[in-house]
């Protein structure tokens, strides 16, 4: 059947179709090449913007001294400990508050006060109480992610369609069973996506805390570079943050697929 309609257009384009991942790689390579040549041509002083090759050199310098992993793991440990502490208290608390209107009313005013506070606003107080210690870093992450995680979890338990709850009760579920078999798994996808957002925020928090006062970590690496006019070290610190957070995000996504196998895509 001859067809003059638009459906042969994709066929025509097929020959030109590129793998989009190739496009992305070319885009990245192009960006780095242009950046490098601008610096090499002397258009911008390396003090203001070092070339990518200088950042790589700095990476090698610190790598040989074993400092790269040292700083990454310092920051990562702070994030994970603070975040795990906040999550392991905030998620069960949120589920409890989601199930009880009375307890929610008790906790509501406090949570409402805590939620709008940016985690960075806790830095002065935490330094006063705990000094420049690891505990201070954990506490910053904890305070930054606790209230939002509680509220997120409450919302997640509320998001379950009431018809599903009726169906479970109609099939003979007790209150305890309803909690375990329906409310908990039903709110899990939203809780996990909330945790994913919170994990990103926890990183921001730790870096800020390290920029203010720390003796190690990626934030410290940046501040240290700034102090000695080592701009390449500043940029290296930034690049390492970006790569670390991306890696953790990918890892989190694969964990997500394992614990929520019923979600598609």
């Amino acid at each position, binding site marked *: 059947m001859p067809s003059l309609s638009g459906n042969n257009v994709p066929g025509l384009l097929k020959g030109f179709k590129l793998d989009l991942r190739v496009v992305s790689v070319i885009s990245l390579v192009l960006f780095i090449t242009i950046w490098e040549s601008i610096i090499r041509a002397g258009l911008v002083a390396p003090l203001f913007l070092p070339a990518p090759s200088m950042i790589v050199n700095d990476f090698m310098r610190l790598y040989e001294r074993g400092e790269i992993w040292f700083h990454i793991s310092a920051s990562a440990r702070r994030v994970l400990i603070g975040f795990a502490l906040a999550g392991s208290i905030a998620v069960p608390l949120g589920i409890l508050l989601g199930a009880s209107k009375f307890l929610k009313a008790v906790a509501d005013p406090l949570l409402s006060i805590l939620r709008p506070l940016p985690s960075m606003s806790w830095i002065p107080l935490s330094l006063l109480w705990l000094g420049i210690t690891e505990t201070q870093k954990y506490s910053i992450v904890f305070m930054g992610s606790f209230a939002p995680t509680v509220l997120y979890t409450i919302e997640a338990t509320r998001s379950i369609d009431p018809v599903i709850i009726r169906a479970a*009760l*109609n*099939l003979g579920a007790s209150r305890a069973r309803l909690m375990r*078999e329906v409310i908990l798994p*039903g709110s899990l996808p939203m809780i996990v996506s909330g945790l994913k957002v919170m994990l990103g925020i926890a990183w921001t928090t730790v870096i800020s805390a390290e920029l203010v006062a720390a003796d190690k970590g990626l934030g410290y690496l940046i501040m240290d570079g700034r102090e000695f006019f080592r701009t390449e070290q500043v940029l290296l610190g930034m690049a390492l943050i970006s790569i670390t957070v991306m890696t953790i995000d990918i890892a989190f996504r694969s964990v997500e697929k394992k614990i929520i196998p*019923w979600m598609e895509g």
Partner: protein
Amino acid sequence: MANTVIQVNDLTKIFETKKEKVTALQDVNLTIKNREFVVLVGASGCGKTTLINTIAGFEKPTSGEVLLHGEPVTGIDPRCGMVFQQYALFDWKTVINNVDFGLKMKGMKLKERRELAQQYIDMVGLQGFENAYPSQLSGGMKQRVSLARTLANNPEIMLLDEPFAALDAMTRQVLQEELIRIYSESQKTILFITHSIDEALLLSTRVSVMTSRPGKIKQFLENDLPWPRDADVQLHPRYQELKSEVWSTVQEEVMKTAGLLGADKDKC
């Protein structure tokens, strides 16, 4: 009457919001006998769902009562198995775990409840999909799972709230015929809600028509079409008689509502 399973006496349900009171049901009386297949027809928004929800114990009456074997319904009663229009499946459970949910709640052992669940999965024609998640199924398959889940729990009464309304016409017909078969083979009493007169006549042993705002039961009609039934029953001469009888009542109601609301496009 020992034969009576569900008795609804002068049931009134008023929903109160801050601004207004809505009378969803007014003085509804309904008696359903053992093994009856009663289909309740009414336009959208006439309170059918409120009635079935009150019988299931999801809603409390404002006044009047619902009796189950002569005793008032005070809460959700697993003797009345509900099938919802929106399927209400547990998305995080596989098909077989959905179907055996009620049995699990009863404390039945894994092996036993798996065997039983498998029977009902076979019954609704879903063999091979035991380990699929609801998100991987079509609407018709989801409603089959929902039917199997309710049937596996072996309720004495089945309440179906527009279960096939969201399905395409062909899937709907297949499932209607399956429901007829299930009804013929099981010993269940069924209350089924729909806005389709054709569906009501195809399935029921008795049709009742509900009025709109406030919902009242306006007409009872014995459906004496011959059994066993399938879609061909529509060719029976008696079918047209019954249909026009129901339609005249429904039409009056739709007109009334349409007059009140301006443009109500309820189809029947």
